């Protein structure tokens, strides 16, 4: 199955390179060689026990090496219905950055750069060279390697020292194709010392074909910087959404990663947060709603490399029908990382007998002065609470919904943008009521 990609690369690597940029090409051949020798992992691999990559990569997908433009006008496709939220809005269609309309976004704060990664590599080579591939290099992961071999473009965001973004940035990832399509997009996000930024990523799939999105993001958060990263996934049952986010935190920085999945096919989030300075804060949370045959695998790693850092993880799943969830929470506390606080909680509600969830906390602690805890609960809806509500005249379905809304509430409360929190609450509740369609467009668009 790897063979088709190996042959594809050998036949087209010139074309891939011609349509990308020098900096991105630099590590391409080496990445390919690595992929050629390692291939895709099977479910025997420790990190991929709950996501089987082989079947999803075995279809005959199109890849758009020539960077042909797909006929889509995202500004028309995705119209906003939340006028009270404003953002700088950008689109990546499959794996190509879609040039924004100036008047649509107004001008960005002084010094801030947001563009395609290919364009950034050409216009700001020193900046991109300084960061590109630095977090992926030590990794040994097939999806990252595969991405590095094939990715040509993606999203680039640079917020210079001490600049506080006045509005959130919204990145809408749209999958759009008439034939089965595989896209490898590559993102680079640099938040310098003292800067502040909020990024909302919306993942969507437009057409009724099979999609594989293999996205890799490297995120650099400087000293005292604050970075909030929200992701709303509302794709469809033929989408395999594979996302790797690697975050590097410097001293006293603060990050929030909040993931919400409402509709999807197979999703895999590989999130790694590395605290490379003292006094960092990292919050990582997710609300996953699954039904039908949805599969959602969150694989998280938090590395406490320095003292006095705090991390807090909260992942919740509500799974119905034959949907499957998995949560892996790896926490490493290095020898010198004294006064670490690391908390992790995974709570799940299974609404059907056939829904399944797997939880794996993996803590490796080498320091002695730490506060760490982890917990996982999986259960059904609280019968006593249901009965109590029913004795007040609340129907069984309505009582269930109230309990599920309550279950999702603390993940939504972690959203630090109030208007976004309201919107997410509304969407999650709509999904739990079974009223949010898979093909519904970006109901979060902010203009």
């Amino acid at each position, binding site marked *: 199955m790897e063979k088709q990609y190996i042959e594809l690369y050998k036949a087209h690597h010139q074309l891939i390179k011609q349509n990308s940029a020098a900096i991105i090409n630099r590590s391409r051949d080496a990445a390919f060689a690595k992929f050629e020798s390692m291939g895709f992992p099977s479910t025997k691999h420790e990190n991929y026990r709950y996501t089987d990559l082989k079947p999803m990569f075995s279809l005959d997908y199109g890849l758009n090496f020539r960077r042909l433009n797909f006929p889509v006008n995202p500004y028309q496709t995705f119209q906003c219905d939340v006028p009270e939220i404003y953002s700088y809005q950008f689109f990546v269609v499959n794996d190509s950055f879609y040039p924004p309309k100036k008047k649509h976004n107004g001008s960005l704060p002084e010094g801030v750069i947001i563009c395609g990664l290919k364009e950034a590599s050409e216009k700001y080579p020193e900046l991109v060279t300084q960061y590109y591939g630095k977090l992926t290099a030590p990794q040994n992961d097939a999806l990252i390697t595969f991405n590095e071999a094939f990715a040509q473009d993606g999203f680039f965001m640079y917020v210079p020292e001490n600049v506080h973004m006045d509005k959130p940035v919204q990145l809408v990832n749209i999958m759009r194709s008439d034939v089965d399509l595989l896209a490898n997009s590559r993102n680079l996000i640099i938040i310098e010392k003292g800067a502040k930024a909020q990024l909302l990523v919306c993942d969507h799939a437009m057409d009724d074909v099979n999609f594989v999105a293999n996205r890799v993001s490297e995120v650099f958060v400087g000293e005292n910087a604050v970075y909030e990263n929200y992701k709303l996934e509302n794709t469809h049952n033929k989408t395999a959404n594979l996302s790797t986010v690697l975050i590097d935190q410097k001293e006293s920085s603060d990050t929030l990663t909040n993931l919400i999945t409402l509709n999807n096919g197979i999703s895999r989030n590989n999130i790694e947060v590395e605290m490379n300075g003292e006094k960092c804060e990292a919050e990582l949370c997710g609300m996953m709603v699954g039904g039908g045959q949805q599969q959602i695998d969150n694989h998280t790693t938090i590395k406490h490399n320095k003292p006095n850092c705090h991390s807090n993880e909260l992942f919740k799943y509500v799974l119905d029908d034959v949907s499957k969830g998995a949560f892996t929470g790896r926490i490493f506390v290095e020898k010198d990382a004294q006064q670490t606080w690391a908390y992790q909680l995974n709570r799940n509600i299974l609404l059907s007998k056939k829904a399944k969830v797997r939880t794996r906390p993996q803590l490796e602690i080498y320091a002695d002065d730490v506060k760490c805890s982890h917990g996982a609960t999986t259960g059904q809806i609280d019968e006593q*609470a249901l009965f109590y*509500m029913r*004795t*007040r*005249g*609340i129907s069984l379905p309505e009582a269930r919904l*109230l309990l599920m809304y*309550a279950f999702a509430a*603390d993940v939504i409360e972690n959203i630090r943008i109030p208007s976004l929190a309201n919107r997410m609450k509304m969407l999650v509740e709509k999904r739990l009521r079974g009223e949010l369609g898979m093909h519904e467009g970006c109901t979060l668009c902010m203009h």
Partner: protein
Amino acid sequence: MLEIKNLHVSIDGKEILKGLSLTVKPGETHAIMGPNGSGKSTLASTIVGNPAFEVTSGSITFEGKNLLEKDPEERANEGIFLSFQYPVEIPGVSMVNFMRTAINEQRKYRKLPPMSASDFLRFMREKKALVDMDNKLTNRSVNEGFSGGEKKKNEIFQMAMLEPKLAILDETDSGLDIDALRIVANGVNKLKTPEKSTILITHYQRLLEYIVPDYVHVLHDGKIVKSGTKELALELETKGYDWLK
């Protein structure tokens, strides 16, 4: 109004109510007393339709309708209310949201449009005053972290909101301090109309001084072993239950 005939109820195969009969007419107040474990809460739970309890024989009708074939929410919307001996905590569900949903479900059942937000808030304010319910409590999740007495007060507040035809108060008096007992009892009395009925489950004569029952029944080992008027409660207070066994 409520007619229970020869009721047998089991849980996990163990029979708890063993042929209980009781008739409550509109406007009447009945007190049910009896030793711990005699089946008082089981009776209350069965009337409101707790699915954990299995009715093996007998019947319960409410205003002529067979209650046993109705879901708990239908029974509630028909006008039956239980103030729980042990109210349930529901973290994450706010009191306001809970009550608004309950009121609107009841209105839907009665084919009325939902109550507007402002009407609802006004209505809630009025009912809170009736039982002297603190704002701090109604701003929290249902019963979460409420003290024992606060939970009981909250039950009566919900009763005030839902205006049932038949209220069953299961040991609402236990856990209340002297002032709270008076306030709650006054609230119950104020809600009373000539058509509304009450079943009071209690261990103590004190409550019956505030809410005077028309009848007092003694439940023992799943059956009513004695019925009388309010004087029976006084007699029980001095003599205990042993003489009835």
